[in-house]
């Protein structure tokens, strides 16, 4: 079978997909802006960023995309973790001789297996077996496969995935993190109305590059282009009758921030790694609890306190 390569640039990581040439391979609309190079041959000349992304001139991650869950090797062992409610699971993680094996179900029909994927961290290689989608296309990164892949990237690099919105006003990058309903999207909307760029209003990847932390968007279900901004301020907003600025200190604030990071706690090394990243961020970037009245006045309120 012939394969061709597709390259994605996500959060300045280069992901190389090897896909069967004789099938329609589908990346949904959310990926449009992230497809960088149509062929491996033109990779280096056309992508200066590629050289920056990997000193060894290799992709940060390789993914071999295969057809059919039934064709996956039956090598997995005991279950390590599952993302489940009381009755169903979206995905399972199993032991595998070379790393881990994921069984990922269709997010809209949880009883339907969508992918069986193997990750070999030594080779930084995924082998993803997927059943064809309703259109007869191979859709190897269909949700939630890509977020899972990005999660594992974040366990091997100075990176974090976090539930947060991020905005950049041309001078400062600000992140607003919290559980659903605290006002992440509202804050992003207010900044956008004032002319700032919204990096994303729901999920960000944070990366430390050359000593500085950056925030990136990642592909969502809607079309977007890759965005990044330096990170200068972190806010933990909550609804309050008045605007309130409470600069955090110490471990308690770091833990509040870490609670919003995307984690699979089954692996102690991953938690340890992410804890190290959070403490590094907390040492570099002020983290503030922010009582919010959701009007434009809060933007002035924030800027005044930042410069105080």
């Amino acid at each position, binding site marked *: 079978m012939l394969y061709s390569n597709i390259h994605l640039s996500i959060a300045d990581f280069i992901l190389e997909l090897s896909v069967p040439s004789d099938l329609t391979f589908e990346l949904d609309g959310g990926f449009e802006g992230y497809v960088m190079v149509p062929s491996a041959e033109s990779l280096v000349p056309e992508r200066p960023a590629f050289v920056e992304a990997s000193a060894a001139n290799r992709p940060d991650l390789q993914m071999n995309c295969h057809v059919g869950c039934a064709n996956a090797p039956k090598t997995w062992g005991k279950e*390590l*973790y599952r993302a489940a409610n009381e009755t169903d699971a979206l995905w399972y993680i199993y032991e595998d001789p070379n790393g881990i094996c994921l069984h990922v179900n269709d997010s809209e029909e949880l009883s339907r297996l969508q992918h069986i994927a193997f990750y070999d961290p030594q080779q930084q290689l995924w082998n993803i077996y997927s059943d064809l989608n309703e259109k007869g296309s191979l859709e190897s990164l269909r949700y939630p496969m890509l977020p899972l892949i990005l999660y594992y990237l974040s366990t091997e690099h100075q990176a974090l995935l976090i539930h947060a919105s991020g905005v950049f006003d041309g001078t400062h990058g600000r992140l607003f993190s919290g559980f659903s309903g605290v006002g992440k999207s509202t804050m992003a909307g207010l900044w956008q109305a004032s002319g700032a760029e919204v990096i994303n209003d729901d999920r960000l990847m944070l990366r430390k590059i050359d000593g500085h932390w950056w925030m990136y968007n990642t592909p969502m279900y809607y079309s977007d282009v890759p965005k990044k901004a330096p990170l200068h301020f972190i806010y933990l907003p909550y609804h309050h009758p008045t605007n309130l600025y409470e600069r955090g200190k110490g*471990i308690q604030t770091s*833990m*509040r921030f*870490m*609670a919003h990071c995307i*984690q699979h*706690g*089954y692996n*102690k090394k991953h*938690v*340890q790694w992410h*804890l*190290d990243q959070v*403490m590094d961020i907390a040492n570099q970037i002020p983290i503030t609890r922010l009582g919010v009245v959701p009007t434009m006045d809060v933007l002035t309120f924030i800027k005044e306190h930042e410069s105080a």
Partner: protein
Amino acid sequence: MKEVIQQIYEKKEHYVCRHTGEELLLIPLKDNVADFNQYLTLNEVGAFIWDHIESGDDEASLVAKICLEFEADKNEVLIDLQHFLEKLRSFLVIQ
């Protein structure tokens, strides 16, 4: 007290630890999930004890380790150690 020490030793693997300055941060892993709302911080001496508890330790061996690291009266160390170990066990058992 040797039983308490052994219980603490056996619980250690269920915690993620990080030194921050002279303090040690402990985060419990419960049902394969790290619980960031139930963390514990230990001071310098508590961190030393956590780091140096080994299987088979008893009060005397721990007091000896502590007195080797910190200049302190053995009897005072013993009393403080007993209080600390009981409190630590209570916290770990609840998690």
